[in-house]
């Protein structure tokens, strides 16, 4: 772990990404404690305020403190995105490995189907599913997870296949190793790394997708302080207070950038040969 972090810090992307993500994690953990106000308390007298000492990032249409809402919202946004990605990655990894393992016509069939599913734009897919499941964060998570699965499956499979062709796997087979050992000890460690990288990059995408769903009214619901929802609500008050829309937008962008950078950093860091 320490080694990995050291490797990460070597590249600028890794260093920057790691620090941003670390910051976000801290916010998720201690955010609510650090929040200067209760995120739901309304204050009729201080609506649409810009940044001020009392309200660092200003207030929204109910006079709620935007900073506090952002801090609370970090969980609603990032954690959900993470869960969605995890779900998608796991499902995808299983399908992908299975496909690679079965090989032949089964592999063909699975992958063609995966391709087919992938020809539905992921946002549309997520929309349909979210709509089918209902309108809530959990449903959105499911939707994104399912929408991600095919892509992950494809990647896992291709990685698995390349690893499968490596001589050390041949060596293991020639040695008469059991399938379990080959998959778990020889292949998996080499398959996992690329998947982690991909997953990290997808978290960034998930944050955005999740926010987008909320924005379209299919994700988190008021009075939740999910960032995408905050942007969506703020749109109506754009002209009364641009701040309301600016901050959550920046927050989303920052997190996405963080995970994108981290992903690219990990790609280098996880390569054992460098």
């Amino acid at each position, binding site marked *: 772990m320490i080694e990995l972090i050291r490797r990460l810090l070597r590249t600028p992307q890794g260093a920057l990404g790691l620090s941003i993500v670390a910051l976000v994690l801290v916010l998720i953990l201690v955010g609510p404690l650090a929040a200067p106000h209760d995120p739901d308390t309304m204050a009729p007298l201080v609506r649409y305020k810009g940044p001020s000492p009392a309200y660092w990032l200003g207030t929204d249409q109910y006079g709620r403190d935007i900073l506090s809402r952002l801090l609370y919202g970090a969980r609603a946004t990032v954690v959900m995105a993470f869960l969605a990605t995890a779900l998608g990655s796991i499902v995808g990894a299983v399908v992908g490995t299975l496909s690679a393992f079965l090989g032949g016509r089964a592999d063909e069939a699975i992958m063609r189907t995966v391709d087919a599913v992938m020809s539905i734009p992921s946002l549309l897919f997520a929309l349909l599913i979210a709509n089918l499941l209902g309108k809530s964060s959990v449903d959105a998570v499911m939707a994104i997870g399912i929408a991600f699965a095919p892509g992950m499956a494809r990647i896992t499979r291709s990685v698995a296949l390349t690893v499968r062709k490596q001589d*050390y796997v*041949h060596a293991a087979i*020639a*040695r*008469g190793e059991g399938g379990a050992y080959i998959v778990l000890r020889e292949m998996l460690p*080499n398959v996992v790394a690329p998947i982690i990288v991909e997953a990290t990059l997808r978290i960034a995408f998930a944050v955005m997708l999740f926010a987008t769903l909320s924005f379209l009214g299919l994700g988190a619901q008021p009075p939740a302080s999910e960032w995408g929802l905050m942007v969506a609500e703020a749109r109506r008050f754009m002209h009364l207070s641009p701040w309301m829309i600016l901050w959550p937008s920046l927050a989303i962008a920052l997190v996405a950038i963080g995970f994108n950078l981290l992903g690219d950093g990990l790609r280098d860091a996880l390569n054992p040969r460098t």
Partner: protein
Amino acid sequence: MPPVLEISNYTLDYASPRGDARALDAIDLAIGRGEALGLVGESGSGKTSLAWAIMRYLPGNAREPGGSIKLSGEELTTKTPAEIAALRGRRIGMVFQDPGTSLNPTLPLGEQLAEVLVRHRALTRRQAWAEGEAMFARVGLKQPAQMMRRYPHEASGGEKQRVVIATAFACNPECILFDEPTTALDVITARQILDLFAELQAETSVASLYISHDLALVAQVAHRVAVIHRGRIVEQRTAAGIFTNPRNDYTKRLIAAVPDPGRRLSGAAPIPSGVPLVEARAVSVHYGRTSRLATFFGRARERVVGNRAVSLSVDPGEILGIVGESGSGKSTLAKALTGLNPFTGEIRFDGRRIGGIADMDKAYRRNVQIVFQHPDASLNPRQRIAEILSRPLALYGGQDGPRDMAVARLLEQVHLPADYARRYPHELSGGEKQRVAIARAFASKPRLVICDEITSALDVSVQASVVELLLDLQRRHGTAYLFITHDINLVRQIAHRIAVMYRGDLVELLDIEQLEAGPRHRYTRALIEAVPRPVGGTTNITIGRHSPGPIPGGFDK
């Protein structure tokens, strides 16, 4: 008259965070008109750096503390990039190691030659094209007109290298650098390219610097040979002299390492016990499955053949060499014997019949081990050496005392320090990795080890030591080897019998004595002749003399 290429006291450093690393140290070289200078060195010796330095193609972190490189008296080191660009390809050309990668896959071969003529000799494209055809003809390409229009993937390796050479000679440069021009080619093709080189060298009287790791080869194509080691020219003398009386210790070691078929390394063949250890009976391997669609369209093409009914046997303690060009089915056979490829026919082990992968039980696996060509690929990059080595122990047992002791012993057996156990493969050198791979193979005390080109990725001296190790182990354990290689000289040094394969067929299987006596099969003969023997003077490529010309591709079996 000044030498065409004159390098004097030239030094090159590469700047790195950990201070400058010296790549070339006070190099002095001179090549006269019509002269061929061979530059021999192992990987990392700096021979390629020197080539780049001459071509003025140095990375950003290159530093040149001093020295000069003169082309016909003109100082190159001080020229501007523009001047250099104008001079490359026109006055100084280069031929690269791998024609497969040094040609642009998306441009026609002719175009890649013509563009040079257009650039340097200000020809119109039509003129350039016509000229190009002439060049192609000159380098012995059949049907030059068609060849001009072909794309790299439509030409064979030899043809491609001829194109590259034609390009290098296109503007009759004063000097050409040949960077391992035959290393990527098959023995016979390589030989043809060498002949072509000699031919052109003689008639154009270009000054050529021939860079190679293969001392034997260089000694035969060059007038003079320079040996480079750790960035220094350690010895420079006539091609004849370098073998007969080397001065420098390194040179001596190098020469010692060069496989010399005249010098047997392995002991006499074991007395045939009657019962062969492993016997392959009409083993055939086919690749790929025909797609249903193809069948549907009625062209279920014949599937790619890896092996066609190969039958051979290995006696206990015997070293059976298998030689042949790439794609001749050597490795396929190895994979079949180790259950990595499904095969038809049957294998007999200790008289037991093995009809397919299913029959390869633990005992068989344990007794038949394989070592692969590339140690980087055959050692799992995410496992420590300890785990890699303890695996077979866990699988086959046979270890006395604690696991790490056994691992240490295995390492010691291949002359590696015990503390390597804690390392990861990428922390080891190529030779060390291969030793680990060998240790892994021997962990199960096998009776047959299949060595699939295990030395071809290694430097000469490393190769020698690995071979040494193998023979040592063989002596100790009486293990039999199936030694697959394309290096005829090497196999002639160690094998008791040699199987020659060609395009999936076993064309000849003969004792080493028979081979020395002169093989019967035409292909085997061509193979043997193609390889330069590492003996000063008695060269079978005489520079300037027209060689018999390319050998026809097909052989009667």
